């Protein structure tokens, strides 16, 4: 199993990287976000510990979606006009990685797609219209778009984040799938998701 040990550049606490592709680590103790550069960590942005609002998730917890078990590796929190939402970075037992979006008791399982060409500009994502999100995802019904910012992170994250930087998003529906585009300063990423339902068992979800 992959494992790399670091020291938080801010407080000196030990940090562990378990995801080979991780690009950011957030210190559990002081909330410092650091980017992984080769064999070292470089601090970015202000220290920020995410406020615990009583999520069923937490970094290190294990859960299950249908037949697949997963481990929670990290969390990203986004602020937008109406509040905030969390994205939990998870790794399944088969090695696949994904995101579980948690927004006021509703959950969507997102997987990132390889499609990165012809991504829709934010300005063209007009809710209520059918637009092409990418070359592959055409004629998507836009359900929402909003200006948003990264509130902060937790644990290991697969891309470089800086708390406070912009993270606009657009979401749409295509054939019952939820298509989400995140507009980060350094890159634009597209995800495909489906709602999942929390069952009576802890951190166990049913697919819909």
């Amino acid at each position, binding site marked *: 199993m992959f494992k790399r040990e670091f020291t938080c550049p801010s407080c000196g606490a030990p940090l562990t990287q378990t995801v080979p592709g991780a690009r950011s680590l957030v210190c559990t103790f002081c909330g410092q976000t650091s980017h992984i550069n080769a064999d070292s960590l470089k601090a970015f942005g202000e220290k920020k510990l995410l406020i615990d609002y009583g999520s069923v998730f937490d970094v290190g917890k*294990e*859960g299950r979606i249908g037949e697949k078990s997963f481990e929670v590796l990290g969390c990203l929190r986004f602020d937008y006009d109406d509040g905030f939402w969390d994205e939990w970075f998870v790794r399944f037992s088969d090695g696949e990685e994904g995101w579980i979006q948690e927004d*006021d*008791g509703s959950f969507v399982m997102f997987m990132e797609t390889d499609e990165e060409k012809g991504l829709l500009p934010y300005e063209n994502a007009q809710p209520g219209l059918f637009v092409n999100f990418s070359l592959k995802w055409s004629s998507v019904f836009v359900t929402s778009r909003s200006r948003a910012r990264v509130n902060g992170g937790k644990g290991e994250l697969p891309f470089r984040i800086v708390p406070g930087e912009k993270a606009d998003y657009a979401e749409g*529906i295509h054939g*019952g799938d939820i298509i989400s585009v995140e507009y980060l300063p350094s890159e634009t990423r597209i995800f495909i998701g489906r709602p999942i339902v*929390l069952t*009576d068992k*802890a*951190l166990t979800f049913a697919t819909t």
Partner: protein
Amino acid sequence: MSTGIQTQEQRATVKQFSCKSCGNALSAIHPRVKQVGCPYCGSLLDARSEEHQILEQLGTPGSHKPFSFIQLGMKARFEGREYYVIARSRWRMNYYEYWSEDGDSGYSKEVWIYDEWLLMDERRTYFYLVEDDDGFWRSDEIIPDSPAMMPEDKQLSFFVKQPLQRVQEFGEATLIYFEGESNYQVAKGEEIEFASYNAGDTYLYEIRKDEDGQMKEVEFFREVAISRRRILEAFEANGAVDQLKETFEKWTFVLQAAGVSFLLMVILAIVAMTGNGREIYRQSVLLSGISEEAPAVMGPIAISEKGLYKLVLQVDMSTVNSDAYVHAWLMDSDKQPVNSVGDNFYWETGYEDGESWTEAQLESSKLFRAEETGSFSASVYASADSEGTVTLILYKGPMMSRYYIIAAVLMAIVAFYANQKRYPY
């Protein structure tokens, strides 16, 4: 690594503070709560700051009382899970409603008020309970596989396998009051646009706009009707519902009893209308043999028991388009009339606008109560321009249909009243 699979973490966080405006105690159970609408004075307070300052006045609670017994803080059990009522939004709809009548159809402009109760369970998952004067609906967000907005022909469907349906309602709804806790910015006056259709359940979309009037979000919902009985069962854990349940059960019993009685009365009325009782006398005479001056005398007619009788006069005319006035007197042994029956009898046919028609009055009857027994007779007078026969029949023990009809109407009124009283909310 923690073992989240084995243990469900429960965080029953309760935030309590006093309303800055009226001083009443307020509480919020969601740790993410951002604002609280005071149900006592209608102030909207900041729940996150220590000061809990007043943000705005949302309206007078007394002007926006709930439709029913449901209140903030109540518990409810739906599909085996316990929920808390944490907020209520009141909306005023200005909308168009589809109507269809006698081959015509269209949309009429309407105004309607409804509440959206927000219910949250221990795992902090939500659903909306929609309530108005007509009842309750559970509203859940859905992800359709064929999302669409209302087209010009107003035929709509959100699913590939669901045929297009006529849009039943469309228009706008405005938030006019809020109480309870919210994780978002409560915006009094916020408007949404919507369109809905029925396909078993109700399906609708809601459009939210930003301050510039630009479409910000489109959400799709399915609303499933919930009976008032089911609502009472769901909220039965609340003490305030005990009295309502008792009332419900009492009036349900009255409703059922009145319903059964109504059916019984209808059956008896039908039997009474179609049955004459037991025939105890029958005699026929030729119309030509009687006149106003020379009546036919019939008898003896033995009435051996007091009680209800039915005297029937039947006229069988042999000539079309003729009429006859016939009257029969029932007389006691002293030849004193005790009752009578009579009428203008006729049988007419014709041909008009390519169709033939027939109108006839060939029978007349009268109910009476015999107070004496003995041997009776009858005198039958007639004034006729037709050939035919007159038959006098006496039945014993007919049923009074009108009393059963009156009783059935009374039972229907009682049933309607009981049904109204079952739901004292």
